[in-house]
């Protein structure tokens, strides 16, 4: 691999300083499962790599009042092992757990998946569906933005020079609220989503949906929040008419590409099918709590 400089700061302030002061391109290293592949292929030629894993809090999951605080570089294996998070948001854990093999799970992080900015990122739809926010540190201090405001296009983010994600804030579920995530791939493991779908619903005691977010991955340049799909669910129980409206809204929101994994037509159709299946799981889970 080409030569590069490496820093492993031990505080957020120090990390901001080295990122902001870098002469050329500086890249943040969390788990490295995307970054090192891009370095080796020559797609990225950074002058500096800043490893954030030595900063206290960047790895770990805390419960603070009505939210979970997840360190940006926390590996997927740690998310799967966290029983309270898994119970609260099984969809978020399902999404993160689908990324790569056991080896990849030992390293890959939510912040890395979000900032790599692939439209097919498996951990992102359920995180957005849960209305999670990210805390970003930078030269001007800290700011907190919705997770959906990070990715602006394939490989592009809204983070400015010197900025990096410190942590995710995920609100805890309300009564009768739960989520689910599914992705479609042509085999059972180790592939990139043809379509991914995260659904987060809140029900009343009678099973009628009072709040919802439906988020699709891999069908547009960024992850898509499908407002019309949420509207199709809110005020309704999960009957066939509701599912048909959800299916149609999900398909309408798709602006996919044709590639080796699927055509535009195929991805669009699958988006509707997945939305139905994921909504059914999310409704069942929400009704059971």
């Amino acid at each position: 691999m080409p030569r590069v400089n490496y820093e492993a700061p031990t505080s957020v302030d120090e990390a901001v300083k080295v990122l902001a002061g870098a002469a050329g391109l500086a890249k943040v290293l969390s788990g490295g499962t995307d970054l090192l592949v891009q370095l080796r292929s020559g797609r990225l030629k950074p002058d500096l790599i800043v490893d954030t894993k030595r900063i206290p809090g960047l790895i770990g999951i805390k419960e603070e009042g009505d939210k979970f605080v997840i360190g940006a570089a926390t590996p997927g294996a740690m998310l799967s092992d966290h029983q309270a998070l898994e119970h609260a948001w099984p969809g978020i854990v399902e999404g993160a757990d689908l990324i790569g093999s056991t080896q990849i799970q030992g390293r890959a992080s939510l912040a890395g998946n979000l900032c790599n900015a692939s439209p097919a990122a498996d951990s992102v739809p359920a995180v957005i569906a849960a209305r999670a926010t990210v805390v970003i540190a930078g030269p001007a201090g800290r700011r907190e933005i919705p997770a959906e405001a990070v990715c602006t296009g394939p490989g592009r983010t809204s983070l400015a020079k010197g900025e990096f994600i410190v942590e995710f804030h995920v609100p805890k579920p309300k009564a009768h609220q739960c989520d689910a995530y599914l992705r479609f791939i042509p085999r059972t493991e180790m592939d990139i989503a043809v379509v991914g779908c995260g659904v987060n619903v809140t029900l009343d005691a009678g099973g009628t949906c009072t709040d919802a977010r439906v988020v699709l991955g891999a069908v547009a340049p960024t992850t898509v929040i499908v407002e019309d799909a949420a509207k199709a669910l809110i005020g309704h129980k999960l009957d066939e008419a509701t599912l048909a409206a959800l299916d149609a809204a999900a398909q309408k929101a798709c602006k996919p590409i044709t590639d080796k994994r699927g055509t535009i037509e195929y991805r669009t159709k699958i988006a509707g099918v997945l939305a139905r299946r994921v909504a059914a799981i999310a409704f069942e889970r929400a009704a059971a709590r």
Partner: protein
Amino acid sequence: MSKHHVTTTINGEPTEYLCEAQQTMLDVLRDELGLTGSKEGCSSGDCGACTIILDGSIVCSCLMLGVEAEGRTVQTIEGIADGEKLHPVQQKFLEHAALQCGFCTPGLIVAAKALLDTTLNPTEEEARYWLAGNLCRCTGYDKVLRAVMDAAAEMRGEASA
């Protein structure tokens, strides 16, 4: 660009080395430390031939920088046996002939050993998912699974299948 001085623990031994920032852990193991048991297959984290145990988790050493090992604990295929005594996973790989060309074997043994460190009662499905990141292009998966399940049984104190 100066080299980084790294102090770490590899296979129980305190180890120091110098490396450049862009050298992967796999490069360091093979080229600087002479630990050539870990193999370079794909260099993109897909094949698992370079699997090591880092602070208890398996990772692809081709997707980790050598400098990241500072202060950590690393276990490689060279540290799986206890001296001359093979680990049960290694012994069962021999007994079940769970290898053909052998290139994927170090990674498979390290990954299987890590599985049995977390549970001695894996279901076959759990073992298959756990090892899904280790590719064998001779496609000898069935014997591998039998060896791993038999090693688990032996470590539970049950008679060999």
